């Protein structure tokens, strides 16, 4: 089926060339990082994780979103999602690969990566994150490829694949739960030390992920004429807006606990993020933008009529997606490290090289996504 990816319009090849260009920019930046070390990033002794780990955290959520199509289709027999299911699964593949690339980019000694397998350590949550992420990647490659191949041959998919489809449901939940456990089990990091973190991660994931799927499906529709089916995206929009409501609710629960209890080591991080702390507040405008985007996105999409209108659905999804990205891809990691355990403040801002590496990684992920979508939509249009 991969042959579908080597024939395409000028726009397709132009896009591929553009992504390759960005990838080479990223590779050049990463070469700098390999030669000089992580000193080329804005990270420091106090803020020891930054943009890379934040992107990984956010993208795990986008990857998990496939389950928001699988559950209605397979547990509730909502057949309308059948047509875009493959887009969810292939999206998961590209996003998990992105996650893995961001983790590797963050390593100080990437050449020793295999030590995680040579010295397996189940008491480390990172070990489990490796297990669940790679597992989710394999499940989605398998399920996506097998069901698409069956569709192409116009036969029913083999029965054994059902097992993996059902397995993908708890597995999707597991990838974001384990990712939250990376942070929320650490003593002395007040911003993350909350049982609601995994739930909040899942809620924002099930908002941002389907929002991304909706946006990408519109793009596919424009360039390939792919028709997801009437009302499908509007229904998925319902998932987006409900999940974002739950996410905001959980955030407010957190805000209540932190500020009513008045425990300084828990308050200081939220204060830093939203009002600034001892004169430091580089993330304050970002966090408020995220909140405004989330609320406006909810107000737009909560109205059923608005979800039926393409333009409003797109705007609502964009707002919610960007809002969730700022919250998790910028605030979550930076906010957790400021102030540090000794109550000193070192702020973090990513450097250009760091953003360059990230750009290259994103381009690689989008290249994989483009190729997989080209194959999937090509097969679907061939069958029709």
């Amino acid at each position: 089926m991969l042959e579908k990816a080597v024939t395409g319009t000028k726009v397709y090849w132009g896009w591929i060339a553009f992504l390759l260009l960005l990838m080479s920019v990223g590779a050049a930046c990463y070469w700098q990082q390999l030669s000089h070390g992580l000193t080329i990033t804005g990270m420091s002794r106090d803020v020891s994780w930054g943009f890379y780990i934040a992107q990984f955290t956010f993208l795990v959520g986008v990857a998990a979103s496939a389950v928001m199509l699988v559950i209605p289709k397979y547990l509730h027999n909502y057949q309308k999602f059948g047509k875009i299911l493959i887009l969810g699964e292939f999206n998961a593949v590209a996003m998990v690969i992105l996650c893995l690339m961001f983790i590797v980019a963050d390593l100080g000694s990437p050449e020793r990566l295999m030590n995680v397998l040579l010295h397996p350590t189940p008491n480390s949550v990172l070990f489990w994150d490796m297990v669940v992420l790679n597992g989710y990647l394999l499940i989605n490659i398998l399920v996506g490829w097998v069901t698409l191949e069956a569709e192409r041959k116009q036969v029913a998919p083999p029965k054994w694949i059902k097992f993996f489809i059902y397995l993908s449901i708890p597995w999707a939940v597991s990838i974001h739960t384990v990712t939250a456990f990376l942070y929320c089990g650490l003593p002395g990091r007040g911003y993350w030390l909350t049982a609601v973190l995994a739930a909040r991660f899942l809620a924002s994931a099930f908002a941002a992920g389907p929002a991304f799927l909706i946006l990408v499906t519109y793009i596919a529709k424009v360039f390939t004429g792919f028709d997801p089916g009437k009302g499908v995206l509007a229904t998925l929009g319902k998932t987006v807006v409900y999940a974002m409501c739950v996410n905001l609710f959980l955030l407010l629960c957190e805000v209540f606990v932190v500020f009513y209890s008045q425990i300084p080591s828990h308050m200081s991080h939220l204060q830093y993020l939203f009002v600034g702390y001892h004169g430091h507040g580089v993330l304050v405008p970002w966090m408020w933008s995220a909140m405004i985007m989330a609320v406006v996105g909810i107000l737009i999409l909560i109205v059923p009529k608005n979800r039926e209108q393409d333009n409003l659905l797109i705007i609502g999804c964009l707002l919610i997606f960007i809002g969730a990205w700022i919250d998790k891809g910028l605030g979550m990691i930076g906010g957790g490290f400021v102030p540090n355990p000794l109550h000193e403040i070192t702020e973090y801002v990513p450097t250009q090289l760091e953003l360059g590496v990230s750009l290259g990684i994103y381009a690689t992920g989008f290249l994989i996504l483009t190729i997989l979508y080209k194959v999937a939509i090509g097969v679907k249009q061939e069958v029709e």
Partner: protein
Amino acid sequence: MKTLRRDFLKIAAVAALGWGVRPAAELMAASGGGKSEGLFFASRHAVHAGPNALKATRWAMVIDTAKLTEEVVAAAVTVCHTTHNVPNIPGNQELKWLWETSMEHLFLDNHHEYQPEAAAKSALALCNHCDNPPCVRVCPTKATFQREDGIVMMDFHRCIGCRYCMAGCPYGSRSFNFKDPRPHIEKIDLDYPTRTKGVVEKCEFCAERLAEGKLPSCVEVSEGAISFGDLDDPESEVRQLLSERFSIRRSPYLGTKPCVYYLV
């Protein structure tokens, strides 16, 4: 073809069974028995020491804040960093094993506004060599591990530089080599390894000196302000001090059981 596959499955099953029935204790942890490391879970490593080595079952440090003068603090930091080839890198990507900070930053929970002078008094911060160390718990490669005598150590050759231990440490005691440290070491001490870029490092209670029968270097230059000894030995100096003087530890409510005590 079919038989071949069956044979293979049989062999695989037997192999898996064999792996499964290996003594679980041997696989999981290596407390005693001469083995140095558990295969799966982080475990306590046996101590390999020379004939003159100082030995203990639980090393601990007691810092007398009353005796800590600015000179002692400076001397301790300097001797620590020179004997361990800790590079001098300015800015927020610095490395420090033992460093000067104020009492107020060390003991956040005891902070109040009526002690401006006492709060600003200089003190020493270092790895607490916790009895229940979160850094060891989170390390995905067992590159940071705990010895049977309690010292939390680093394997600079195994560390992948994921910096999970830095997030896990609630004391900010760990430093990362953001760049090659060697050009930033004034005079390299050949008795101690230098590190490469991309690995984490921290205080190791001078394990290399204990093995030769010497006390940690900061203790030696402290003019009596820092004591070091076996917490399990009721006759040790540290136990005497702890029983006579009131002591506090950094964030003990976190359950990490820090083994650096501050006399106040």
